[in-house]
């Protein structure tokens, strides 16, 4: 993607991603987790465990929300992100199964060497669930 100083303040928006129980299950199956001796019962899978931790229902793993943002940056700004890029984010609100997530990025600064981005993810109630910053190196010419 070609971006220059005139792109500062431009906002880029993803298509919505439905993070439902099926998506969470597929994600969980695609990562390598430590072996367990008993079935996984925790805040991501169990109503009681979630309530005990203070949530109204099981919540999606923060890793999945973070992964969606990293993917969005890669798709929007290109493979340079994997050579010198940086993402830093706080998971500020829980994501419940069934939430539709939209990833957004705004160009804060465009130098010769890199773009600085403000990034955030919103649920379908307009709440920010992830906020952060990212850096994407520009391709060498």
């Amino acid at each position, binding site marked *: 993607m070609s971006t220059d100083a005139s792109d500062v303040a431009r906002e880029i928006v993803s298509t919505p*991603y439905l993070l439902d129980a099926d*998506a969470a299950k*597929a*994600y969980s*199956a*695609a*990562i*390598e*987790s*430590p*072996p367990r*001796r008993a079935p996984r019962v*925790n*805040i991501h899978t169990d109503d009681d*465990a979630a309530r*005990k*931790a*203070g949530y109204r229902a099981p919540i999606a*793993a*923060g*890793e*999945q929300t*973070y*992964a*969606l943002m*990293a*993917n969005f*940056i*890669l*798709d929007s700004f290109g*493979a340079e*992100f*994997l*050579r*010198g*890029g*940086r*993402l*830093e*984010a*706080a*998971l500020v609100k829980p994501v419940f199964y069934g939430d539709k997530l939209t990833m957004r990025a705004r160009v804060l600064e465009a130098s010769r060497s890199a773009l600085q981005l403000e990034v955030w993810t919103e649920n379908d109630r307009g709440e920010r669930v992830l906020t952060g910053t990212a850096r994407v190196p520009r391709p060498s010419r």
Partner: protein
Amino acid sequence: MADDQRLLMCPENLHEGLRLGPIFYVVKPEQIEAFAKATARTNPLHTKSSEQIAPPTMRLQDYALLIASRFRGGSGGVHAKHWSEFHAPMLANQTVKTEGRITSVQRKRGKFYFDLEYESRDAVTDELLVRQAITSVLLIEGKIQ
């Protein structure tokens, strides 16, 4: 398991400077495909080719493998923050070495937080691939305390 020598995952056993790992693995093309599918990826970078690239955070969960290499039990944690620096793409069939270190532990507003920094390198060339850190709130007896 009676012969499990690992420490219990609790605040008393977590301290700054504690090293975790290394762990080793081969990046599986099947995992790249499954992860890409699970996160609705259509980027051709992740499809089978001579240079099939893993999605950026496919091995983010390595922190859990590092923790499990040293600790057992506990109620898990809540992911609060994360940062990642991407240095080079992780490729299918690459052998990777990941190791980490607890960089801080603190009680703040009644909660127990810890930071774990970890990095993954090509196990053969030692090239740095990704450096990252998780900030987690430890659940104690199932609760955020």
